[in-house]
């Protein structure tokens, strides 16, 4: 589950614990931001619940004292972004897997600072379904010395688990989202479509499209540069524009953005360009949805069409659900319903990881040797 990095969002947590306890951790390590939750064994109270941009800033050489807070040489998350002009920014992850082991280890170390004190740390960590053995081994290597024991579980499994509200299963009218749904998770590096029909998805139930938020950023950057060749916006500025204005559907001509270019404020009229930047993503998702529906048992399709769920950072693009639903209708599908999980989508994988950590048996934890 991904989204573009913006703010570190501390969420109020419950009472503290004693250092003698084992800490269970649910960790969604995303390309752009990560969600971490923690509690003690046997407790449902969350002691940590935070979203932290997945970015590390290494202080540039020769900086004067006092420029960076406490003259730190390594900054993380929101702080790294805030002081980005004084830092060499490094993303530990690319396309959902570790791309830079050193910054990944540093970032994991920083994550531990957000956890309550405990005797032992056990983490369930979400990995992309397509993560191969090397990618998984990299995760284990990066968190050595941070967690004592880990279990790696594919993110779609954890999302399904996290999205399900077990306390409401007996409630009249509650539709169990894992009974018969199509989840579309649009992250930074890939868009993952996954059929969940009562069982954890198998490889055949999933499609991973290597086109998502990062590709939209690159497309938008290219479009803006074509219209304003001297604009030369940083990728962070492009991401800000996307997060505020990205849309799908009929062209909007009234999007005016103010940016500093060449030291002077400029207004950019980029409604058309923003619309263009999301077209490829829409087309690919539409094709992917059709393929997934075709895989489902025909008897299950009417109900499945009622439960198409958009999640991930890309789901926040305006009108995405409506436009996708209309495309499906126009293509002949009967009364499809596409909905968005909402802004708290970032928490579902970590929430599922917490559930898995609580349910894991002793023998299932893999010990990390430091």
């Amino acid at each position, binding site marked *: 589950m991904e989204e573009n990095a913006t703010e570190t969002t501390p969420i109020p947590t419950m009472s503290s614990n004693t250092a003698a306890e084992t800490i269970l951790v649910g960790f969604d390590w995303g390309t752009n931001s990560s969600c971490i939750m923690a509690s003690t064994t046997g407790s449902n109270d969350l002691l940590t619940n935070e979203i932290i941009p997945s970015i590390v800033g290494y202080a540039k050489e020769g900086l004067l004292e006092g420029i960076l807070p406490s003259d730190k040489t390594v900054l993380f998350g929101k702080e790294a972004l805030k002081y980005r002009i004084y830092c060499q920014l490094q993303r530990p992850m690319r396309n959902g897997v570790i791309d830079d082991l050193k910054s990944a280890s540093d970032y994991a170390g920083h994550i531990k600072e957000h956890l309550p004190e405990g005797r032992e740390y056990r983490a369930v960590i979400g990995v992309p379904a397509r993560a191969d053995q*090397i990618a998984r081994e990299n995760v284990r290597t990066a968190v050595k010395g941070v967690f004592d024991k880990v279990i790696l579980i594919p993110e779609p499994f954890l999302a399904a688990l996290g999205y399900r509200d077990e306390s409401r299963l007996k409630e009249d009218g509650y539709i169990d989202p894992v009974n018969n749904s199509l989840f579309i998770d649009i992250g930074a590096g890939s868009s993952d479509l996954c059929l969940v029909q009562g*069982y954890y998805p198998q*490889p055949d139930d999933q499609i991973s499209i290597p086109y998502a938020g990062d590709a939209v950023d690159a497309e938008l950057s290219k479009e803006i540069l074509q219209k304003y060749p001297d604009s030369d916006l940083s990728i962070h500025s492009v991401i800000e524009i996307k997060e505020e204005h990205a849309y799908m559907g009929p062209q909007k001509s009234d999007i005016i953005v103010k940016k500093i270019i060449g030291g002077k404020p400029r207004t950019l009229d980029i409604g058309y360009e923003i619309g263009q930047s999301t077209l490829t993503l829409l087309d690919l998702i539409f094709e992917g949805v059709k393929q997934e529906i075709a895989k489902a048992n025909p008897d299950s399709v009417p109900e499945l069409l009622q439960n198409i769920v958009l999640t991930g950072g890309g789901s926040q693009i305006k009108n995405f659900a409506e436009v996708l639903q209309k495309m499906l209708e126009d293509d002949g599908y009967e009364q499809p319903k596409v909905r968005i999980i909402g802004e708290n989508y970032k928490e579902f994988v970590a929430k599922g990881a917490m559930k898995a950590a609580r349910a894991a048996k002793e023998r299932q934890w893999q010990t990390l040797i430091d």
Partner: protein
Amino acid sequence: MAAQTQHRDPVEIISKTAQTSGISEDYWNELVELFREACLSYHEGHESEAKKLAIDILPELIRRWSKASPENSDEKRLRLQNMFIEESRRIADAGIIQRMIVNRLSERVLPSIMNELKQRGFAPTGNSGKKLPKNTADLLEQAEKPPEENKLLQKAMEKNRAITPGGATLSTGKRKVPVGDVSGMIDALQGSEYKSMAQQISPLRSLFE
């Protein structure tokens, strides 16, 4: 870590086992030992040695054990599969420990030896001091370098990589696990991962296909 694999005569191994035991458990123990050796050979980069053990010796041992064993064919197949998975996992764990030892050697032990040698007047390179044999000099010179520039360490890590080639993704395999069964899902994921490891390092999978 495991000793260097010795070349053995397959006929000699099989006949020795048969003479001394004659019962299925002896064949089984021999089978486990040889499979482990094949895995270790493969892990250490002796691919031809591993293939030789796997293709020339193990099938015959499996056949003899199978004949001698009172278990039915399903039980035998399951026992073999479990053994392959368990042994492969042990070798993978050993790989991690090996890497750890190489790291420690490279980062802590060898630099200390290097310093001591220097203090005693030896020099791996350069003109001053007594000269060490070239291999020792190279080793010690590498040991002084940080891990990212240390060719010995990198080589060791590359070898360890042989046990975990990419490609196998994490899934529950052919098992359908209900969403409510979280523990069953973890078992299925881990079982599938171990099985995939076993398949990647074992040419014996053809016996089951």
